[in-house]
């Protein structure tokens, strides 16, 4: 994307005072997100992929100013979103919206779905009640729900439909950027495909930019133009979708890709799986140096001492944080 980025994330860090999930290490600091930098272009989808607890949601919340970075900046069209006045923040909310994972808990069960979708309009004093009702019906049509169902309650809808309602609500104010935090993870495969297609259509129609967060690599590839792979609070590889999936340079990305078997039985059995040792360590006690070293089969002494920087390799726009990333990209079949 050549136009200046719409969103610019620079060295964003979020530490929590103590680990929620690790009550024993009470004095520890959870390094939920650590010096993450990336940009998002207009009409671009950046996929953020990584295993649970690697900091994706924390990052997502900071992008929509629901949480503050411990350090670092997030700029929307050049403006630091965490230094905005109240009015500025309110204006920002129109431009950046979020869709959350769980279609079962993210909608208020006591509100009609019409009111849920119209709420941001009401909060921002947008239009008269009648105009808001019209806009709500439009939004229902846009996301493929029957506008006559605005007076129903969330429990009357399936998971996929509720996710559409969440998307309609996020679109109500006409945002430019939508952060989607695992929007299809709770959905069955057939419904997941519908929602992914819908998001792609909406991007075309409304010129949206997405930050699309998911732990499922295949889902991320399907929707993203560029992909950033996270591990323990860090972006360890980022680049265009085809390059990251086709020629991954970071050992973790390689392992992650090798653990997504294709649906062809022979190919699935032939696929060489890179088996990592154990599980990801706790972000309350990240390993020194390279955070991946405790599971990395290429690790050497230097990896425990020096943290590798995220640097560009042979292909432009393809950055990797590994001391031993191959100079040339490794071609993976496909």
């Amino acid at each position: 994307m050549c136009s200046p980025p719409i969103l610019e994330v620079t060295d964003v860090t979020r530490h929590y005072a103590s680990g929620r999930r690790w009550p024993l290490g009470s004095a520890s600091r959870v390094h939920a997100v650590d010096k993450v930098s990336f940009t998002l272009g207009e009409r671009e989808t950046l996929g953020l992929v990584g295993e649970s607890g690697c900091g994706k949601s924390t990052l997502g919340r900071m992008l929509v100013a629901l949480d503050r970075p411990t350090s670092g900046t997030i700029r929307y069209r050049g403006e630091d979103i965490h230094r905005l006045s109240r009015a500025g923040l309110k204006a920002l909310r129109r431009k950046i919206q979020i869709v959350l994972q769980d279609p079962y808990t993210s909608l208020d069960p006591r509100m009609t779905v019409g009111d849920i979708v119209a709420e941001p309009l009401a909060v921002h004093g947008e239009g008269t009640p009648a105009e808001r009702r019209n806009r709500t019906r439009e939004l229902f049509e846009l996301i493929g729900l029957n506008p006559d169902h605005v007076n129903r309650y969330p429990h009357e809808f399936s998971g996929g439909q509720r996710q559409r309602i969440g998307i309609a609500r996020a679109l109500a104010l006409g945002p430019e950027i939508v952060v989607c935090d695992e929007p299809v993870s709770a959905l069955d495969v057939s419904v997941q495909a519908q929602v992914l297609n819908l998001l792609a259509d909406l991007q075309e129609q409304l010129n949206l930019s997405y930050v699309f967060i998911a732990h499922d690599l295949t889902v991320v590839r399907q929707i993203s133009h560029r992909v950033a792979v996270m591990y323990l609070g860090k972006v360890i590889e980022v680049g265009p979708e085809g390059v990251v999936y086709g020629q991954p340079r970071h050992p973790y990305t390689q392992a992650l890709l090798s653990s997504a078997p294709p649906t062809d039985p022979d190919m699935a059995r032939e696929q060489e799986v890179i088996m990592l040792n154990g599980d990801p360590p706790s972000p309350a006690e990240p390993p020194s140096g390279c955070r991946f070293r405790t599971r990395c089969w290429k690790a050497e002494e230097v990896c425990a001492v020096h943290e590798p920087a995220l640097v560009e390799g042979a292909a432009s726009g393809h950055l990797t944080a590994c001391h031993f990333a191959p100079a040339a990209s490794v071609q993976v079949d496909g």
Partner: protein
Amino acid sequence: MSDTTRKGNTMATEHLLEVHDLQVEFGGEDGPVPVLRGVSWHVDRGETLAILGESGSGKSMTAQVIMGILEAPPARIGGGSVRWNGRDLLGLPEAARREVRGQGIGMVFQDSLSALNPVLRVGPQIGETLRTRLGLSRGEARDRTVELMRQVRIPDAEQRYRQYPHQFSGGMRQRAVIAMALALSPDVLIADEPTTALDATVQVQILRLLQTLQGESGMGLVLITHDFGAAASIADRVAVMYAGRVVETGMVRDIFRRPAHPYTKALLDAVPRADRRAGQLAALPGQPPVLGKETSGCPFRFRCPLAETVCEEREPVLSEHAQGRWSACHLGKDVIAGVLTAHS
């Protein structure tokens, strides 16, 4: 477990575990709601059967009936049979069922975290059944448990034996739960979405572990999963469920290459791929069915691109359209022939 004698070819062979025409309903406000409407499948020794299907299709329910842990009421078993090594389990008294549970058929549950008691050490939890069911002494149970923990590749099994569940990572907990299911050396293991809650790199480890354990013991493995890739990697055969029925079953290669049911085909097309990016995914229209709604004809017809008049009139039964190719579709032969493949 006595080795059941295989019957001659003149009769249908006895399967290790066979579910036949299983019917289960729940008492609802507006009358009974059928959730299993004639489920049939089987698994043999040394074989892996993957059960696929969307949420609510009845995968876990079938497993609960097999294990004899279905809460009835509110549920009611309306018919059908479960045969394990030739014994009809549904007719057995509770004491005999309990015997089969664990020793005959082991199970790893969908929500495995809750399978471990957070205030007890992991090792003794795994070993408990060894003492209560096999009457082993404390020391014997301990030795056997440590051995089991090694078998499921828990490193430093001796130290781990004394730790609490919260000291285990997600993957290690799942290994402990598998060890628990294998403690009494069952000849069938049912694993209900054993990897869904785990990270991708850990999922592979657990899948491979199940495959290895099965290879070592020759047990039958029933893997309930949403994950087509997982099924493609380790299943021999597959059963696809829709709306409380098996709508297709057969060898994994046949089904994944040339499905015999439009639903299977649609699911396979809807799975995004890691090796290339599709323009648009071939999304199946509509929603998975709401059970209990009285419908006529084929339950899939509202979403099926091939639906014809006959599909409204009669509900198709699981039938063999070609050698070993079973599906519940009036047009099964056309589907296998690829009438549906034109658009993809």
